């Protein structure tokens, strides 16, 4: 038989019943879309992870208070004195209203010291980072300077920052912009203490705590290198426990937790695990449903075309020819579903950054497009085996006389 002919026949058949073919392939379509979305989100995370590690440094150690005011200057000094710690900075975040010219925006303000530049791996585009002598100086994240306000904020511009104290009073001060940070590759980790530096305003910690009338902060420290993080963390723990009077044997919970960059990344990856397993479950169920759908529609097609099958046999088609004709058609149905599925999956991934889902931008690996199409094709063919076999073994005369 001419090997191209079954493809033309299949194409004509699918084209002649577009709506039916589309509905039939819906299962495959959803399955492939779910797989593509899943893999893309996973790969997006992988890329994100690698960038985060190189961008922010995996030697970062975060010491986060579990009780307000648990960590203070005494604890900061102890951390700074720990061998293996290169730099340590306090970090206090607060929601603030920021006014520039006549515009007001809600932004996050971070109180830090000069050490944070090294700890947070920040590079400046313009001006300088905070120093110990600064009081009403601010260093702006890239987006704050360039995107948040309708006009760019430049160095030496005045901005007004208003914070709310816990007793409800408001406190407003004017700051002079001292520097602007380069667009940072470090990534928002979605945690209370780590916002994307591009969207932050850094001011001296002492100023912020005065404005808030509150003492206490988190401590961000950097270890000498990644492989020292473990040892340095233990040493910090020992020192802080001694300082705060935490007894290990009494199983007392210390009033702080220590997180390493690596652990945070792992935590976020786990949280995407739920989405991933849900998408995988959808994919598997859809694949089975899709397979049944194709088998069902192929059985209908074979019955509808019984007389055509009789005719094919009358004009010289062998069982094998008939088998191939219908297998190609069911394979093509699968492939069409797969193609639409890939499109839907990629489309879904393109939407994620637009609708601000708390996920890194997905990346679709090209080989998964082909795997998706291949699985769709395989499911189509496998689902078509029984109907095609049924068609192939029809007795020609009975088929021709079928009413």
């Amino acid at each position, binding site marked *: *038989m*001419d090997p*191209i*002919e079954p493809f033309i026949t299949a194409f*004509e*058949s699918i*084209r*002649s019943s577009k709506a039916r073919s589309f509905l039939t392939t819906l299962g495959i379509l959803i399955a492939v879309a779910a797989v593509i979305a899943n893999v893309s989100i996973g790969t997006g995370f992988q890329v994100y992870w690698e960038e985060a590690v190189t961008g922010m440094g995996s030697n970062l150690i975060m010491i986060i208070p579990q009780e307000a005011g648990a960590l203070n200057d005494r604890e900061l000094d102890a951390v700074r004195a720990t061998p293996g710690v290169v730099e340590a900075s306090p970090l206090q975040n607060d929601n603030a209203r920021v006014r520039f010219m006549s515009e007001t925006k809600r932004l996050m303000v971070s109180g830090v010291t000069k050490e944070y530049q090294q700890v947070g791996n920040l590079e400046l585009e313009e001006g300088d980072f905070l120093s110990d002598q600064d009081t009403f100086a601010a260093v702006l994240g890239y987006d704050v300077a360039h995107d948040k306000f309708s006009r760019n904020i430049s160095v030496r511009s005045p901005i007004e920052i208003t914070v709310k104290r816990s007793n409800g009073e408001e406190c407003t001060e004017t700051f002079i912009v001292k520097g602007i940070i380069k667009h940072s590759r470090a990534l928002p980790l979605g945690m209370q203490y780590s916002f994307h530096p591009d969207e932050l305003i850094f001011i001296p910690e002492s100023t912020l705590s005065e404005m808030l009338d509150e003492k206490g902060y988190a401590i961000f420290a950097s270890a000498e290198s990644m492989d020292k993080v473990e040892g340095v963390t233990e040493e910090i723990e020992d020192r802080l426990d001694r300082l705060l009077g935490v007894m290990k044997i009494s199983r007392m919970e210390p009033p702080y937790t220590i997180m390493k960059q690596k652990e945070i990344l792992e935590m976020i990856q786990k949280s995407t695990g739920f989405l991933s397993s849900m998408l995988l479950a959808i994919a598997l169920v859809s694949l089975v449903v899709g397979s049944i759908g194709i088998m069902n529609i192929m059985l209908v097609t074979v019955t509808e075309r019984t*007389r*055509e099958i*009789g*005719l*094919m*046999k*009358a*004009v*010289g*088609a*062998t*069982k*094998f*020819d008939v088998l191939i004709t219908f297998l190609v058609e069911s394979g093509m149905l699968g492939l069409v579903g797969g193609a639409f599925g890939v499109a839907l999956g990629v489309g879904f991934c393109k939407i994620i950054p637009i609708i601000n889902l708390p996920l890194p931008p997905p990346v679709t690996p090209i080989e998964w497009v082909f795997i998706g199409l291949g699985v769709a094709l395989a499911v189509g063919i496998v689902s078509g085996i029984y109907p095609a076999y049924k068609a192939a073994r029809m*007795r*020609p*005369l009975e088929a*021709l006389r079928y009413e």
Partner: protein
Amino acid sequence: MKTVEVRTIEKMYKLGKIGVPVLRGVSLSIEQGEFVSIMGPSGSGKSTLMYIIGCLDRPTRGEIYIKEKKVSDLSDRALAHLRGREIGFVFQTFNLIPRSSAQKNVELPMTYQNISRRARKRKAEALLEKVGLGDRLRHRPNELSGGECQRVAIARALVNDPIILLADEPTGNLDSKAGEEIMELFEELNEDGKTIVVVTHDQDIARRTQKIIRLKDGKITGGDIIGN
């Protein structure tokens, strides 16, 4: 040369547990270039006989020879090839593929042989031209009249140059004018040397052939040679 010969053919159909005899010992032969009709009332087994001659059905007992070669014990696969190369069928209900153009319908039997795409196209066009449908190549069956559909079907039956053309009530679904045109086409083809067998219950159709084989209750009851 004997184009087709059948010897003491018997055919039983199973209806539930009961075997119903349809053909009870039929022997006949058809010579090259003959134009034969098989006549009989409905249920006489005339169509069954035709499909057995065309190797589309197997007899319960008996032998079939095509071009003096025994074919009744060939495999399904070999029979499919044989039908493709040596037999052309024309049906009462045309049996065209509704989704395909006239030309594609005519090409269908050639797709199961090793014939190039271009040769198929050329052959199909030439045959449609010959049956008077040279201007209807791209039309689908639902855009053609019944007579035109049957002519497409005849072109399809002729496309692999079969040694015999078998037609089962070819005018049964046509009005008398279209039926007349189809019979004229058969006569023309026969004059060109084609061996044709027409199954019919219509006396007027049968009378236009050269030989009538009469069938009743699965047996040949008589044969008339019609002198032209």
